[in-house]
């Protein structure tokens, strides 16, 4: 059962996510009927799921919400801002109560009642206004196309078939069942008189019914049910109230009581009760879950089938454990295939070569598919921000247009999850400190509405995510002064703008204090940077005063498999990610020896280099030999890395080297080569940082 519940919550969360994005796009295009349909459908499925699990409170709540959207769908109600706000508030509430389905939390309980009131207010509001305009319309309006929830009305139906009712093949139970499909119901059966078994004639009908039904339709809908029975039975339909009496506890109890006593209800008592309860009726929590749930269950089964059908075809749910296992196996296959290729190179057998090549092709395809499976479109995350922007900009009294681009860009699911918080922080910053108030913007000649753009795109094996705003921007000089006053740099140091902006990511460097008068709050940008570094990504700021700020985040497509350049340093194999490799050169060793500036002239450009043998503590090569210089790009720097030999290109399945080596983080992992030996994967960014730190240290000492 727990498992079922977990599935329910998972599905509900997904549905709610769907709902939110539809609601938000509805806000932009209130007349988009397809979105209204979508909202309605999602609510309907959610209602069905909830009642299937017996979570009647949620089901009831969603049912009421759904009613509003059904009316809008039918063109009986206008989609107002108020409705949207209430729906979004309800959405938040639903997010809470799908976990707390019994409303154990007092707060939830309170909220629940308040929201139900609001929703009912909205539903009734529409009915009243309509009634004022065309009072007679409601009664006549109800034709077959209007579905039951339109107007709540409770009817009393007295259905008494004649004793010869069975003779023409009629079945009263079918009629009762048909009637009960119209809405919520209470059915009380009665017998004419108690007869002895000897007098019993199975062909005569001795039962009659009292049925209380809450039907959205008018009386003629009920009459319709009995249209063929009229001549054979005594049928009486009386409208009791224009509200839902069935859900009322007192009324239900009264009826149940009579049912057990097998008494006919006294009409006067009934009308008096109905009149009293009809007025005082409050939107109460569902009272007869047994009946309601059954009804909803039947309904949900039908709708579920039709709606989930589409999904079943397009996707299935697989636990991430299984995917991880698949990835591990594929990684092993790739490694094994590398040894096969190697073996084949040593023992040239034409037949084997053919097989080996085929396996290589297949494993490559398999790898691409397996790794593609864990990728999810970044849109999932973007839609979450839509809401954030809406709420924050409202709170700040700013007018904001939130644009997303490249939502179809796919990223590893785990990366997306880790990325959400940093991005949220950045967007909040943009809204709070970046964008100006509408009046200020107008004075500056900018459109009143500020724009925050979230853009994602591929480049090589990296994914770029940009957050662009057209706000007031960040003044380089202010940051520079601040950095000087904090002692990070000297006042006469020459720094590029990019280097200056990097100070934003220093711990304790409050951007808020620099850029605006509002003091900074929440986590700092240093945390953002750290989170992104953990994903092996990087972040860069560009900004122009009064034009805006752009933050660019660069992330690796996948963490576990890379295309690399296999090199050899002092008989140890290393992998340099191909994505950073710019160009390879061959130089004589004496050029590197005693090179005071650590600079080489390559293609008539000066390139700083790192002597890996020296830095890694290997014995240095003799002057007469040659070294290979691999020029890698690190952000906008180009740095040469010296190695002994370049072996070739290699598909590396990167494996962690474990906690023992956490202080050697310039090695990002290890990969197993075809011959079973190990190659270490260099993190060139870290190596360059380390090297520059060393250089600084040497200068100081």
């Amino acid at each position: 059962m727990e498992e079922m519940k977990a599935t329910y919550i998972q599905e509900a969360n997904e549905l709610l996510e769907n709902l939110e994005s539809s609601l938000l796009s509805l806000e932009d295009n209130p007349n988009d009927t397809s979105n209204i349909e979508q909202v309605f459908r999602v609510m309907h499925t959610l209602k069905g799921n909830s009642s299937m699990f017996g979570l009647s409170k949620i089901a009831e709540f969603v049912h009421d919400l759904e009613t509003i959207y059904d009316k809008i769908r039918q063109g009986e109600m206008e989609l107002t801002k108020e409705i949207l706000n209430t729906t979004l508030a309800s959405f938040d509430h639903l997010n809470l109560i799908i976990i707390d389905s019994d409303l154990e939390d007092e707060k939830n309980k309170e909220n629940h009642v308040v929201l139900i009131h609001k929703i009912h207010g909205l539903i009734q509001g529409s009915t009243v206004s309509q009634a004022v305009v065309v009072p007679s319309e409601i009664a006549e309006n109800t034709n077959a196309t209007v579905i039951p929830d339109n107007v709540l009305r409770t009817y009393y139906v007295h259905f008494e078939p004649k004793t010869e009712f069975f003779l023409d093949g009629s079945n009263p139970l079918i009629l009762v069942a048909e009637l009960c499909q119209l809405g919520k119901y209470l059915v009380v059966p009665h017998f004419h008189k108690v007869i002895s078994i000897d007098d019993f004639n199975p062909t005569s009908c001795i039962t009659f019914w009292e049925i209380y039904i809450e039907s959205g339709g008018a009386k003629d809908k009920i009459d319709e049910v009995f249209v063929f029975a009229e001549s054979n039975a005594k049928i009486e339909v009386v409208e009791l109230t224009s509200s839902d009496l069935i859900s009322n506890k007192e009324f239900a109890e009264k009826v149940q009581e009579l049912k057990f006593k097998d008494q006919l209800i006294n009409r006067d008592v009934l009308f008096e009760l109905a009149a009293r309860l009809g007025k005082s009726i409050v939107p109460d929590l569902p009272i007869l879950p047994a009946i309601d749930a059954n009804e909803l269950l039947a309904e949900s089964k039908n709708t579920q089938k039709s709606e989930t059908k589409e999904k079943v075809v397009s996707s299935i749910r697989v636990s991430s454990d299984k995917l991880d296992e698949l990835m591990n196996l594929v990684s092993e296959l790739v490694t094994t295939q590398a040894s096969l290729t190697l073996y084949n190179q040593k023992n040239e057998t034409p037949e084997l070569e053919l097989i080996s090549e085929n396996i290589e092709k297949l494993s490559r395809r398999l790898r691409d598919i397996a790794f593609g499976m864990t990728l999810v479109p970044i849109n999932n995350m973007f839609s979450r921000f839509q809401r954030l922007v809406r709420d924050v900009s409202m709170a700040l009294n700013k007018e904001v247009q939130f644009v997303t681009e490249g939502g179809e860009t796919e990223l590893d699911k785990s990366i997306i999850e880790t990325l959400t918080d940093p991005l949220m922080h950045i967007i909040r910053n943009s809204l709070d400190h970046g964008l100006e108030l509408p009046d200020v913007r107008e004075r500056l000649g900018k459109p009143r509405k500020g724009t925050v753009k979230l853009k994602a795109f591929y480049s090589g094996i990296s994914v770029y995510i940009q957050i662009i705003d057209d706000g007031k921007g960040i003044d380089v000089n202010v940051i520079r002064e601040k950095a000087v006053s904090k002692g990070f740099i000297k006042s006469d140091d020459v720094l590029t703008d990019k280097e200056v902006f990097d100070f934003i990511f220093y711990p304790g460097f409050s951007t808020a204090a620099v850029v605006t008068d509002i003091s900074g709050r929440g986590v700092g940008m240093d945390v953002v940077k750290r989170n992104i570094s953990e994903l092996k990504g990087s972040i860069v700021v560009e900004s122009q005063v009064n034009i805006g700020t752009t933050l660019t985040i660069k992330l690796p497509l996948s963490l576990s498999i890379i295309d690399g350049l296999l090199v050899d340093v002092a008989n140890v194999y290393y992998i340099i990610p191909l994505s950073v490799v710019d160009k390879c050169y061959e130089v004589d060793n004496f050029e590197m020896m005693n090179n005071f500036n650590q600079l080489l002239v390559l293609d008539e450009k000066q390139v700083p280099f790192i002597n890996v043998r020296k830095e890694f503590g290997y014995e240095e090569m003799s002057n007469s030999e040659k070294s290979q210089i691999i020029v890698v790009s690190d952000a906008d720097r180009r740095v040469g890395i010296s190695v002994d030999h370049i072996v070739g290109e290699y598909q590396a399945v990167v494996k962690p080297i474990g906690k023992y080596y956490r202080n050697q983080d310039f090695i990002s992992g290890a990969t197993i080569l075809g011959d079973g030996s190990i190659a270490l994967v260099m993190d060139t960014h870290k190596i360059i940082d380390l090297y520059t730190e060393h250089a600084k240290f040497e200068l100081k000492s």
Partner: protein
Amino acid sequence: MKNEHHNDKHMNGETKSFLSFKLGEENFTVPVMKIMEILEVPKITRVPQSPNFLVGVINLRGAVLPVIDTRIKFGMTPIEFTINTCILVVSIEVNEEIIEVGALVDSVSEVFELSTEDIKPAPTLATRYRADYVQGMIHESDHFIMLLNIDKVFSSNDLESITEIKDNSQEEKNN
């Protein structure tokens, strides 16, 4: 604390299997349950700028396994590998996490069974090894075998404590 532990075991007195190995002339032992397998020494890839006792990483059927030189860890001088040198793949528990690590030892001696009540408490004084590394002593004919607390010996947390110890001793010298 150690004594209490010992007494508990004394009452139960169950029989367990142990594996003994040698470092130089010294005998050590660990519970067999902790040993996953014993390997000949394969090609070891050293990670640059790592502490001395971390000899490098090896390929254990597709997984990357870090290897620790137990001699260096215990402050002995490293020696050339011999035909008897081997790697014990041990599974240790650090911070409620199970990790596997290779331990380089001079030679593996034997697997023997022993009642836990034969384990004597470790002497608190006069050992050359850190007290928390040694869980107990086993007396055998004319010599002692040290029962190691393998989780402690190979815990990666020790990386810090080793450097701390170094720093402290340096400070002491300076003082």
